[in-house]
C-alpha cells in the first residue's frame, strides 16, 4: 500500500479533465447524485404519504397512479423507495463517519508512535476483525434493541478497524519521507505533523476507502433491516421492504423487484465512483484495483 503523492504536480483543471474523461467516475457520480437527489426530494415531496396505510389499496400492480405498485399495506412503493433512500444513506454515512472519526486518528496515532502502542492497537484491531460482522451486529441489536441508531452503531464499529488499518498503512509510508523529516527538524510535534502533513497526504486513500465502506454500509443496512434489526416502521427501509416482499414473490413481484433494484443501483454507483476516484488520483491504482 504505497501512495504516490502526485497532487502537487497536477493543476485542478488537469484533475477535472481527467475526472470527466473517466467513465467509472462519471457514471458513478451521476448515479450517486441521483440517489442523493431522490433522498433529498423525499423530504419535500413524495407521490403519497408513506406513514398512512390504506389497506383497501393493498398489493396493486404498477399503474399510472402507483408507478411501482403498492405494498401489502397499500403504501406507494415509489414513495417508500424515495424515503428509504434517506434511511439507507443516513445509516451508511453516519456509520462511515464513526469509522473514520475513530479509526483514522487511531491508525495515525499507531503509525506515529510505533512500537508497543502500534502493536497493541493493531491487535485490538485484529480482535474486532476476528468477530463475524453480521453476527456481532445481530448481538448488538439483540442487546440494545433493533432500530436505525443501533444499526448505525453496529455497522460503525466494524468500520473503525478498516479505517485504522488504511490510515496506519498510508501514514507509515509517509513518515520516512523527507518533508516529514524537515518538519520534525523544525520542532513540530507528532500530533501536529500528523494533522498538517500526514492527513492531507492520505486523504485520497481515505476517500476511496470511504466510498467503498459507504457502499458496504448500504448493503449491511439492507441485510440488517431484512432480518428485522434496522430502522423500524413507519420509517421505510429497503431491506425490510424486501423482507415484506419475499412471501409475495409470485403474487406481487414488484414488491421485491423495485427495492432490490434500488439497492443494486445505489451500491453500483458508489463502487464505480470509488473506482473512478482511485483511478484519477492515483494512476497506478488503475492496475491494482
Amino acid at each position, binding site marked *: 500500500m504505497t501512495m504516490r503523492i502526485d497532487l502537487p504536480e497536477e493543476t485542478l483543471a488537469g484533475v477535472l479533465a481527467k475526472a470527466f474523461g473517466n467513465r467509472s467516475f462519471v457514471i458513478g457520480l451521476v448515479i450517486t447524485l441521483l440517489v442523493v437527489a431522490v433522498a433529498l426530494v423525499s423530504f419535500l415531496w413524495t407521490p403519497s404519504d408513506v406513514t398512512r*396505510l390504506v389497506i383497501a389499496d393493498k398489493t396493486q*400492480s404498477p399503474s399510472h397512479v402507483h408507478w411501482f405498485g403498492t405494498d401489502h399495506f397499500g403504501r406507494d412503493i415509489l414513495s417508500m423507495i424515495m424515503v428509504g433512500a434517506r434511511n439507507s444513506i443516513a445509516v451508511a454515512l453516519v456509520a462511515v463517519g464513526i469509522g473514520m472519526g475513530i479509526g483514522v486518528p487511531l491508525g495515525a496515532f499507531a503509525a506515529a508512535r510505533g512500537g508497543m502502542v502500534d502493536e497493541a492497537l493493531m491487535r485490538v484491531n485484529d480482535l474486532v476483525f476476528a468477530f463475524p460482522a453480521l453476527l456481532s451486529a445481530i448481538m448488538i441489536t439483540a442487546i440494545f434493541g433493533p432500530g436505525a441508531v443501533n444499526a448505525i452503531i453496529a455497522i460503525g464499529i466494524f468500520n473503525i478497524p478498516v479505517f485504522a488499518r488504511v490510515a496506519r498503512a498510508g501514514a507509515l509510508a509517509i513518515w520516512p519521507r523527507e518533508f516529514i523529516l524537515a518538519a520534525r527538524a523544525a520542532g513540530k510535534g507528532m500530533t501536529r505533523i500528523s494533522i498538517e502533513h500526514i492527513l492531507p497526504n492520505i486523504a485520497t486513500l481515505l476517500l476511496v476507502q470511504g466510498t467503498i465502506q459507504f457502499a458496504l454500509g448500504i448493503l449491511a443496512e439492507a441485510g440488517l433491516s431484512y432480518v428485522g434489526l434496522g430502522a423500524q416502521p413507519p420509517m421505510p427501509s429497503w431491506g425490510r421492504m424486501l423482507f415484506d416482499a419475499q*412471501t409475495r414473490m409470485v403474487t406481487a413481484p414488484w414488491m421485491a423487484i423495485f427495492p432490490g433494484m434500488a439497492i443494486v443501483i445505489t451500491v453500483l454507483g458508489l463502487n464505480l465512483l470509488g473506482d473512478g476516484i482511485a483511478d484519477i488520483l492515483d494512476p497506478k491504482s488503475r492496475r491494482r484495483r
Partner: protein
Amino acid sequence: MKLWKTILAAAVLSFVAATSAFAARTDLTLGIVLEPPHLDPTAGAAAAIGEITYANVFEGLTRIDDNGQVQPGLAESWAVSDDGKVYTFKLHSGVKFHDGSAFSADDVKFSLDRARAKDSLNPQKPLFAHITDVTAVDPATVKVTLDGPQGNFLYDMGQVAAVIVGKGSADGNKDKPIGTGPFKLDHWAKGSEITLVKNPDYWGTPAALDKATFRIVPDAAAAVPALLSGDIQAFANMPAQDALGQLQSDPRFSVVIGSTEGETILSINNKKPPFDKLAVRQALASAIDRSAIIDAASNGLGKPIGSHFSPGDAGYVDLTGVYPHDIAKAKEYLKEAGLENGFSATIKLPPVPYARDGGQVIQSQLKDIGINLQIIPVEWAEWLSQVFTNKDYDLTIVSHVEPNDIDIYSRPGYYFQYDNPKFNDVIKELGATVDKDKRLELLGAAQKILAHDVPAIYLFELPKIGVWDAKLQGMWTNWPIEADDLTKVKWTD
C-alpha cells in the same frame, strides 16, 4: 403479468405429471415454523412440542378432538362423584409404552403426582393445582380427588401438558420421547427435521401413515416455495398468509381455514398512566378499525372478537359492537380524559407476523387521534422478561392461545395489571360451578365486563390456515389446542 402466469402454469403442469407416479403413498412431510427445544410436553412450554407429540406420540387420560370436545383417551370411561370432587377413570387394557413396558394405573398416578409436585417444572402446573390425591385402585382403575368441583377438569386432563408418561422413561423424554401413541420417534436431525414412524404395537386403531416427517421451515418466505416445489406436502398452519390467493387457485392444494383458541389482543398495561383511565382505553377501542387490522394482519381471515372469548366456543357473546370504529367519538373520550392533544406511548411487538403487521396498522390508526406510537420489536425472550414478567410496557400485541383462559384477567400479578373485584367474583363462582347452563351464563357475564371495561382491545380470533396436498385427508381443520394429530391422516387416490 401474463408471462408470469404462463410460466407458472407450465411449471404446474409439469409438476402434476411428475407427482402422479407417487399415488397412495404412506409417508408425509409437514412443515413447522419453530423447532421444538425438546420433545417432552410435560417439561416445556414451546407450542411446537405439543404440535408434534400430542396424540401422535403421547396420550392423556382424555383427549381433545378437532372440535374442542373431550373424548376418551387412555381412559375408556369415567365416573364423577355426586359432589364433583372424585373422578374414577377406567383405563384401557393392553396398552404398551414404546419401550415395551406395560401401561397401568401406576403410570397415571406417577404422571399426575409428578406434574403437581412441589419441584415440578410442568409448564401448565396450575392445571393440577386442585388435585389433592391420586390413587391407583387396581391396574386399570385410577381415582383422582379434587379439593372442590372443577368445571373444566376432564378438558384439562386432555391438554398437552397432562399427557401420561412412563414411570421408567419419563426422565429421558426430552430426547427420546416414550409414549403410548400410534407413532414413535424415529430420528431427530437437529435444526432440520423430526421423523415419526408408525408404532406397530399400538393398542387402538393403527395409523394409516407409515412415516411422518416434521420439517422445520423457519422462514415464512421459504414456506411457499417449499409447498410449490413439493418438498413439503402440508402446513397445519401456514406462516405466509399472503400467498394464500395463489395457493387457493392451485388445484394441487387444499386450503382449509379453521379456528384456534388464539384471542389476538392489544394488551394494555392497566396500571400505567394514562392507560389507567377508562376513557383513554375507550378512546383506543373507538379509534381502532378492526376490519383493517384483520385485513392486514390475518389477510382478512381472522374472526372479529369483542371480548376475550373464542367465537367457536359455547357461551360466546358477540360484543364487537360495544365500541364501534368512530374517530370523533374517540377524540371525545380523549378530551374526557384531559388528553385532547394526544400523547406518546410505546408498543412492544413479539416476532410474529400478526403482531408486527397489526402493530403497524394500529400505529397508523392511532395517529389519527393524536396518539404517537413508537414500535419496539422484541424477541420472545425479551417479551417474556420485559412485558410478561416485569410489566415494563405500555401496549403489546399477542395471541392468547390457551383454551378457556378468560380467567387470566383475574390472576393477581398477571401482566395486564387489571384488577376488577366484580370480574374476580364472577370467575371465582365460575370455577366452582359444574352446572352447564349456569357456567354459560357466568361466562357471558365475564365477557361483557371485559368488553365494556376494555382491559385490552380485542382484535380477532387467530385463524388456522391449513394448506396441504389436495389428496391428503384427515388433517385437523381447527386448533382447539395446537396439535397436528396424524392418527386419521391418509393419502387418497
